[in-house]
């Protein structure tokens, strides 16, 4: 069996924090002086936290097409362009089968409205490409990396992917713009109600405190 990507899946395939898990089989002999990479091209609905990736420093290093990833905005507030993440696996040849885990995060999606009320907000995620780069090899044909946003220095061969490796869909949670009128008025009414309740309690307590203060003053005078 030649080197290939055996499987790829998102774990779990739902929720706000799926992990991309890729299993790779490496056939002997493992190329010397070469580095194995995984390249993820993520839609704008997904992102990685660079600081979280530092926790995986024992397993891999990484580079991003945009190092300043926006961590705190919904999808419609960030540029509508994919994010390319290249993972550089350490000591790939140390084992025959390796599993690479990359934590992903989901942005809140574009709001549902009257036109899209029946749509399923689902995003397609491509499986990562695995490839070697070796210092002694020439660059391959450019079309092997169509769509790549990261310059690849001397890439020397894409690993085949098994037929099981195919794009997956993940559901993105979205709000509904038709809720706005209720949310606006409901939030303010609740705030005002709580304000009135607490405010009245504070005023009553202040009156009791004032009364006690006056009583103490009288006792002192007597």
């Amino acid at each position, binding site marked *: 069996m030649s080197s290939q990507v055996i499987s790829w899946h998102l774990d779990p395939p739902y*929720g706000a924090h799926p992990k991309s898990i890729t299993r790779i089989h490496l056939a002997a002999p493992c190329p010397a002086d070469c580095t194995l990479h995984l390249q993820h091209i993520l839609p704008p609905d997904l992102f990685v936290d660079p*600081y979280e990736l530092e926790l995986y420093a024992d397993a891999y290093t990484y580079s991003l097409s945009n190092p300043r990833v926006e*961590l705190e905005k919904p999808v419609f507030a960030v540029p509508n362009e994919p994010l390319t993440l290249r993972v550089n696996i350490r000591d790939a040849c140390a084992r025959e089968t390796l599993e690479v885990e990359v934590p992903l995060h989901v942005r809140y999606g574009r709001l549902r409205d009257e036109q899209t009320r029946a749509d399923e907000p689902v995003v397609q995620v491509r499986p990562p490409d695995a490839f070697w780069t070796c210092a002694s090899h020439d660059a391959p044909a450019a079309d092997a990396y169509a769509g790549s946003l990261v310059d690849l220095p001397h890439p020397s061969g894409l690993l085949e992917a098994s037929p099981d490796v195919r794009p997956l869909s993940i559901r993105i*949670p979205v709000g509904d713009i038709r809720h706005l009128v209720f949310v606006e008025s409901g939030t303010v009414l609740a705030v005002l109600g709580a304000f009135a309740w607490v405010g009245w309690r504070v005023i009553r*307590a202040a009156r009791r405190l004032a009364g006690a*203060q006056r009583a103490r003053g009288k006792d002192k005078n007597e």
Partner: protein
Amino acid sequence: MSQSNYLSMATSFRAVLALSCILRIGLILYSEWHDAHSLVKYTDVDYRVFSDATHFLLNPGSGNRAQGPLGTWLNVGDPYTRATYRYTPLLSLLLAPNEWIHPSFGKYIFAGCDILAGVLIHSLLLSLGSQRVSSNPARKTGGPKAETRREDPLEDRRAYSTILAAVHLLSPFVFSISTRGSSESVLLLFVLGTLACALRGRWHAASALLGVAVHWKIYPVIYGVACIAAICQERAHAKGKTSPGAVIAQLWSRQAISFAVISAGTFFALGVAMFAIWGRPFLEETYLYHLHRRDHRHNFAPHFYLIYLTYPDGSGAVEAGAGGSRTWWRALLRSPLAGFVPQMVLAIGAGALLARRREDLVLAWFVQTAVFVIFNKVCTSQYFLWYLLFIPLLVPRLGISARRAVVCATVWAATQALWLSQAYRLEFLGEEVFAELWMCGLVYLLGHAWVLGAIIDVYDVTACKQQ
């Protein structure tokens, strides 16, 4: 061993302190093992943020230099190179031993602040003369009119103080937050220190500490109102004057003015020093960010959904459909002022109205803090610590029945549990439950406001003067 000996041991403050220290050291050591063997970390994400910021501060380089006028001369790095670091540079300096000694050093500092806070709480309870208030069994509403009160013998008071201090020291909420690496305990120690000085009439020390606390995080500025109110009230009553006009006239007294000047002066001196070294990023990230932050992701505050529904898109325009017909009243409903004004009116008003004497500062600060948290447009579990800190000091002055206390605790916890059940569905199952989560946020807001009102109602205004 006799029963009284067991009770004596169980309520020995040294025993509680020793147990608290062992617990925290054990959890910090466990956290190192756990984090090394599991990808789901015990350590809070914030601790990584602080540690990264410290690393950047101590390792200046290209693209990482302090941007203030003195920064280049001092050759220090910029902690704000770390994205999402929104704290004073003093915090990253405090964690410098993380780089020199051990990465978990900061956790020991935070846990140590917990312990010191517990010692301070115990000391305050002893000096305030903690008294048990016997509730009237005929009283149905849990109001404050306790019929039976007595001075406890010294031994009883020590035991009671120990039990209340243990509420803080042995609270899983408290020790898990500090051992996970959250820095809240540092600020809470400043707040408690300020309160201790104020309760003992050491106003200059209190005002300086308040300035430090406000530099660390802005919200303690509300306590200044209560302190000045207490100063004015005490001065007016010492002169035998009780009218509101006479109290307000004391705002121009030397004591009130010096309190304001020292606390503001301390705050600005620290701010100027930090700005001189770290420049505009310090101002932007530590303070200005909080003026325009838009927390659209779910949190306890129901405001998150409104923020998400009206979040501007990449061009700055409000999301299509959300703009709609922007009448003036809808603009007002969406404005940050819709939440900020009630929050500040209550926080400041409670401080001004409830701080009649130094002894009432505990109630005033508790109410101010709870109001600030409940009405804030963002709220996470750590914020609850800000007002839970005062509970051990407040309990001796609450004429509350056990039943009512259980009801309050249940409502407080159940509203959070309800919200968490929906948050789990959104966060971990990816279900579209924004409306349900928002409604749970309303229940949380109203439930916690109800509990706060219930606690205010049972405050005993006839508690004896501080000993």
